[in-house]
């Protein structure tokens, strides 16, 4: 296995307050990892640190190039752009200053749309897409540069069930050829579909396949809940003595 993304002893601040401390993790090519933790645990900050979007206060990020799928609300969906225009915007640096997209760039756009199965909607205005389709557009925009790592920030927020399942299937497919890291609050689905779970609360509390994370203590520590929590019951974890 080759590491597609590695974070070593990473510390990062947000607004002067330390958010991440001593984060160590490694995600390999072919691995679908879920980043789990409560709000404020630093999931988005970890993703932004992995992308080099915020300065590190210490530590190292080793990445062979990551594609970013930010939260859906960051995108101006009322903008008069078609699906293919939106995906093309992921190539803005690659096309270069003062230059126009070439045929090869458009072919990359169409290939990315094929991968997320939106090829037939490429001319549709982005404002007319459903939530699941919008998420696919953002994934295609990240895929258009063929990144070895895909970082997804809460892609399921506000999506209904078939949309969530279809996206999960897409991410599983995409993870065959690259590393996929997905921040999510859907613990049960993550435990069922992802190869690895990363439990984060300011630092990595535990990491491994769901089958190896049977100790309720790490879940209680990550999510700051007591032994009677619904969360543990939903994940079929029973604390010792309960």
């Amino acid at each position: 296995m080759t590491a597609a993304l590695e974070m070593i002893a990473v510390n990062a601040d947000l607004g002067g307050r330390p958010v991440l401390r001593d984060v160590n993790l490694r995600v390999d090519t072919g691995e679908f990892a879920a980043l789990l933790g409560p709000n404020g645990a630093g999931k988005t900050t970890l993703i932004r640190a992995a992308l080099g979007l915020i300065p590190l206060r210490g530590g190292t990020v080793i990445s062979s190039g990551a594609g970013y799928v930010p939260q859906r609300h960051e995108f101006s969906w009322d903008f008069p752009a078609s699906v293919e225009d939106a995906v093309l915007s992921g190539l803005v640096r690659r096309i270069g200053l003062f230059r126009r997209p070439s045929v090869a760039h458009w072919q990359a756009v169409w290939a990315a749309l094929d991968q997320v199965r939106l090829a037939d909607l490429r001319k549709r205005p982005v404002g007319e897409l459903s939530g699941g389709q919008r998420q696919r557009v953002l994934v295609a925009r990240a895929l258009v540069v063929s990144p070895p790592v895909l970082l997804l920030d809460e892609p399921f927020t506000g999506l209904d069930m078939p949309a969530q399942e279809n996206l999960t299937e897409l991410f599983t497919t995409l993870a065959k050829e690259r590393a996929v890291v997905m921040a999510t609050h859907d613990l049960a689905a993550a435990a069922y579909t992802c190869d690895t779970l990363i439990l984060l609360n300011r630092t990595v509390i535990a990491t491994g396949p769901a089958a190896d994370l049977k100790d309720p203590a790490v879940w209680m520590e990550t999510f700051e809940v007591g032994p009677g929590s619904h969360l543990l019951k939903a994940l079929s974890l029973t604390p010792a003595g309960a």
Partner: protein
Amino acid sequence: MSPLQFLTDLVNPDLAFLPKALIIATLAAIMCGVVGCYVVLRGMAFIGDAVAHAVFPGLAIAFLFSGSLVVGGTVAGVVTALLVTVFAQNRRLKEDSVIGIFFVAAFALGIVIISRAPGYAGSLQQFLFGSITGIPDRDLYVVGGTTIAVLFTVLLLHKEFVAVTLDREMARALGLRVFWLDLLLYVLVTLAVVMAVQTIGNILVLALLITPAATARLLTDRLSVMMALAPAIGAGCAVIGLYLSWSWDLPVGGTIVLTLTAAFLVASLVAPRHGVLARLAA
């Protein structure tokens, strides 16, 4: 007055100020229409308003020292845009508060400065509400050159401006220099506004920036179409507005703005798919 008579007046050498005003109003409307598309799509109408007011102290200083109004206004607008961009980095204050502080301050400074000029009441009214007389010939070259520069810059950096507008977070992740692109956009807005201030006036210039772009947005879902329609609507309304103001002896700035507003109202009625009539028919 018939349109034919208007054409005769345009070529009448005694009325040389009229074609000058027409050219400047049209070019300014084209610039404002193009730049206004970004302003409308980014929801930064308030910034447009701020920049429009911020050019005022520059105009006042230029007026006091008989300098170029265009240069004075541009400098003042860019300085205010810089102040807003820098102070908006402070996370405790939202950008709109910072803008609120600086644009009123700039306007106040302009009022204080121009009050030092003898007989300032008349010139104040000209600045605020526009006038078609008293445009020096060299302004034609300045406005023409600025139009070319602004349109060329937009052409070169269009996809970067679009990327930043679509998704700032992603634009940063892609490595675009968002701060500099923002600042450059403010400068473009400032230039477009300054060119329009003389004919249409400081208070009303916002209409030239926002209304044509908003009207075009109602009519299309394609950015390229919108960016062609907006300057066309702006220029068309500038010409019609000037004609109406000349025929009926109405204030030029106000007439152009009301013409633009009429175009907006018509568009919101007849717009395909999303207009009032289309929705009633559906």
